[in-house]
């Protein structure tokens, strides 16, 4: 990657002032603390949890997307040799339901099931196969009901209500600017997004260990320990301190571990049997066991002047939330508030709905509502450019948001918003060489070694897109993170110990915390305690927020520790604390240089501080969707170059160029890793990834049939990382994880459109769509002419 800094990092980096920077501090590509165990196979993932006396749990799930439960008979299951417990809703000691935002989902269904795969009963047995067979021996009688699987039907007042509150999980209305503005040119189309799966590799799993006095310890992979604990305590009827959760190794998350999976179930089984209980989903069960990215239908009308200034955006967005609320309300808010894109849009009229259906529940996935909207608004920008006979990048540049832009919710963008620069950079990035004519290497062609083509019908296309994402939690949520930092010198060397509950899910927040501690205290030896619930909450590893939030908490706690150390040193020396700083294990004086070794100064004392960090408050949206709902924004742009076999509809992504403002790259290698990994998921959504749900049933719950990009599908990535510094965050950081997945998808689609001349209004684009065998564009717009 090339790194560019076109403006200074806004907040000055706090002391240590001068002196040699500590090894592995902020701004370096410090190695991950969990790297060595991970490459040696010694890192303990949640699926590796083991106890000599443990039992295995299994889940009985509904085969119907919508049904009434007439009876549940567990007699035969209990008779299986080796079975220790079979539990139903009757055994839920506390609150019978759970949920991230509203507890609308039964822990175990009692009267009605609302999606295929809904848990109804649990089994614990000595061997996992015994547990599975006993699960099959739980007899359930159903009265099968007609499933509601079309969100538009669900919205119809005449349709049966799937929940007492009705079928609308949330409706957001945004009215901004003039109610009826006039435009010279109008572009209208409807877009569809299929259901994407997070497809983390580490299955849902964990080990629940009863403590013998009614409480339980749970070792689990999750994104937010404390919100898990809240829900667990309520449903287990235990006090929060009786439920202790430790983060076990997490094999990827991407949003899919925000909701509970095995947590309550494994604890119920452990408390009943008084034995440790391990639960682990198979890949098939995993497709039923976590929420997915919302499928969406997005109708847009863009109006512009003849010279290409946006006049208005009108949109109606419908998100299929599936059977339970999960985080649909927040996804709906993101989609609605970000749905005009990173552009100056003076007038906007938006209605965004999240609805209940009998499809699998949908919730968080990386990009969280911004992904679906970006595909649609960027497709609209291309459509509008075609109508205006303008270059699509030129149209975007003309309308690009910048610092001070007011979004459709009336919020002024305070930090850097370098949309024009990002777009220019990707547009001007060097292009890959043209596909080799003559005797091409078939491995470089669409279809690869399947030998589908020798290049006859292969056309190249280039597409661009920009996008943006809110960082941290929004709409007035009390978003905070907690950190405890301890400085001591146990063996004559200073050591800093950091303790938070932040979930390391692969993204690198463990590394970042240690880097911050090293820099702030000038101590290289930094260790991280396991994340658990014995410390205050860090909030979720979501919304690209952990570097900002938990990073901010670690930094603040380090500052408190440093202040105490320096004031002690100042007292001893008769100096002013302001004249002293810490560097590489030494107490330094501005005047005299090294005055103390930190270890000597500390002696046997332990200096410890616990601090909470909060970002600036946000506010809820009013009835017209107005409000400063977001704490900050991150921006990225992508250019995709594709080769398309226009006869077979096969696509090879040749190259991706991206530019992204990350505020400050605390760990440049980890930043690149987030960018590259996010782009892979964006390419997946554009070209292959869809949970196919027919009549409420997932038809492809396996990696055989749900395809994610392999090493053959992933192009080289040229990342241009800008570090413009956000004024509101520690070190000026912005979240990194989500923007790469947002605008990469529409860039690929635009490139395929350019190669084929087809409208391609639905993602993922299937070979039939690309080859023109289906016209899946829901709107009546004629496909665009090839460029």
């Amino acid at each position, binding site marked *: 990657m090339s790194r560019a800094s076109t403006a200074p990092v806004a907040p000055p980096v706090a002391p240590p002032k001068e002196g040699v920077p500590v090894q592995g501090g902020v701004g370096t590509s410090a190695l991950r603390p969990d790297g060595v165990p*991970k490459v040696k196979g010694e890192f303990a993932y949640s699926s*590796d949890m083991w106890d000599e006396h443990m039992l295995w749990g299994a889940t009985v799930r509904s085969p119907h997307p919508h049904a009434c439960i007439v009876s549940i008979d567990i007699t035969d299951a209990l008779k299986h040799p080796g079975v220790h417990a079979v539990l139903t809703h009757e055994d839920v000691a506390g609150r019978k339901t759970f949920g991230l935002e509203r507890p609308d989902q039964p822990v175990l269904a009692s009267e009605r099931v609302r999606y295929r795969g809904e848990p109804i009963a649990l089994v614990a047995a000595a061997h996992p196969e015994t547990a599975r067979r006993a699960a099959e021996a739980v007899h359930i009688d159903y009265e099968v009901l007609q499933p509601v699987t079309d969100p538009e039907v669900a919205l119809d007042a005449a349709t049966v209500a799937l929940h007492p509150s009705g079928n609308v999980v949330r409706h957001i209305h945004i009215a901004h600017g003039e109610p009826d503005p006039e435009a010279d040119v109008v572009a209208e189309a409807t877009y569809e997004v299929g259901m994407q799966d997070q497809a983390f*590799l580490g299955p849902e799993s964990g080990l629940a260990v009863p403590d013998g006095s009614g409480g339980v310890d749970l070792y689990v992979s999750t994104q937010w320990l404390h919100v898990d604990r809240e829900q667990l305590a309520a449903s287990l009827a235990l006090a929060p301190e009786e439920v202790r959760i430790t983060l076990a190794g997490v094999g990827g998350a991407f949003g899919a571990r925000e909701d509970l999976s095995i947590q309550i179930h494994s604890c119920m089984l452990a408390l009943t049997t008084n034995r440790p209980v391990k639960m682990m989903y198979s890949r098939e069960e995993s497709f039923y066991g976590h929420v997915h990215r919302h499928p969406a239908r997005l109708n847009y009308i863009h109006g512009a002047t003849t010279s290409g200034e946006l006049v208005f955006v009108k949109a109606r967005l419908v998100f299929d939330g599936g059977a339970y609320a999960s985080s649909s309300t927040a996804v709906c808010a993101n989609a609605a508030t970000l749905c005009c894109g990173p552009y100056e849009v003076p007038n906007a009229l938006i209605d965004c709905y999240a609805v209940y259906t009998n499809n699998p529940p949908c919730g968080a996935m990386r990009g969280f509502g911004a992904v679906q909207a970006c595909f649609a608004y960027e497709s609209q920008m291309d459509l509008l450019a075609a109508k205006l006979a303008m270059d699509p990048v030129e149209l975007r540049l003309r309308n690009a948001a910048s610092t001070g832009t007011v979004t459709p919710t009336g919020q002024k963008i305070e930090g850097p918003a370098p949309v024009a620069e990002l777009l220019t950079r990707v547009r001007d990035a060097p292009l890959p060489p043209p596909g080799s004519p003559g005797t091409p290497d078939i491995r470089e062609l669409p279809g690869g070694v399947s030998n589908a083509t020798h290049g006859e019908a292969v056309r190249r296309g280039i597409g661009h897109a920009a996008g943006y994402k809110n960082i941290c939690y929004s709409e007035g949520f009390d978003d905070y993170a907690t950190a405890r930092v301890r400085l001591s010198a146990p063996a004559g060397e200073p050591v800093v110990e950091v303790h938070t509950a932040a979930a390391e899910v692969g993204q690198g927040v463990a590394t970042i915390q240690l880097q911050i501690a090293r820099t702030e205290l000038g101590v290289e030896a930094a260790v991280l305690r396991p994340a658990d619930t014995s410390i205050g909450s860090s909030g979720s590893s979501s919304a690209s927020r952990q570097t900002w939030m938990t990073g901010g908490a670690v930094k603040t706690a380090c500052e408190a520790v440093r202040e105490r150390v320096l004031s002690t040193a100042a007292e001893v020396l008769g100096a002013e604390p302001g004249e002293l700083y810490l560097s590489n294990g030494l107490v330094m004086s501005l005047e005299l240089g090294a005055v103390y070794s930190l270890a000597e100064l500390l002696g046997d004392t332990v200096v410890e501080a616990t601090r909470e960090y909060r970002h600036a408050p946000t506010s809820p949206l009013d009835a017209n969707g107005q409000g400063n709902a977001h704490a900050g924004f991150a921006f990225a742009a992508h250019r995709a170059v594709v080769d398309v076999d226009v006869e077979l509809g096969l696509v090879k992504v040749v190259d991706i160029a991206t530019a992204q403002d990350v505020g400050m790259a605390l760990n440049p290698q980890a930043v690149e890793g987030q960018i590259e990994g996010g782009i892979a998921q964006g390419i997946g959504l554009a070209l292959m990834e869809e949970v196919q749900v027919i009549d409420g049933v997932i038809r492809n719950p396996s990696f055989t049939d749900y395809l994610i990009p392999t090493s053959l599908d992933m192009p080289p990535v040229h990342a241009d990382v800008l570090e413009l510094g956000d004024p509101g965050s520690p070190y000026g950081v912005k979240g990194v994880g989500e923007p790469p997945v947002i605008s990469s998808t529409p860039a690929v689609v635009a490139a395929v459109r350019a190669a084929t001349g087809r409208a391609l209004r639905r993602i993922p684009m299937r070979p039939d769509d690309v080859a023109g065998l289906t016209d899946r564009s829901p709107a009546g717009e004629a496909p665009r002419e090839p460029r």
Partner: protein
Amino acid sequence: MQLNLEVNGQVLQADDVWAGESLLYVLRERLGCPGSKNACEQGECGSCSVYLDGTLVCSCLVLAAQAEGRAVVTVEGLAGAGLLHPVQEAFLAAGAVQCGFCTPGLIVATHDLIARNPAPSDPEIREALAGNLCRCTGYVKILDAVRLAAEKAATS
């Protein structure tokens, strides 16, 4: 049934094995070698890759009984205790590890690739690792790691 097999040079025994158990399950749950991973258990992801008598296999697709009397090498056995194999070092240095769930399988597969082909070209690397899914990295740094490991092997 009882099973005897050699794992990373040690002869190990597992008792009461159910006939339906895979080699992966026995390694992970009975023999204390959870390094090989279980992302799909149907031969699609490569996270369970091990050597069986020197051949790279998906251990989830091998019945444990088929491994009776044979030699298995897992990611845990590529380097001595406290040591790193150059392939492992390369994955660390290149930043090819995020959540790391794919890493054990990729390291064994890369080990095998470089043994067969000490200087693999880019398309050869991509082809050889196409059976190992990674959801975090987008493969860019994994390819870097393989190139780095091949260079290290060539110069050592």
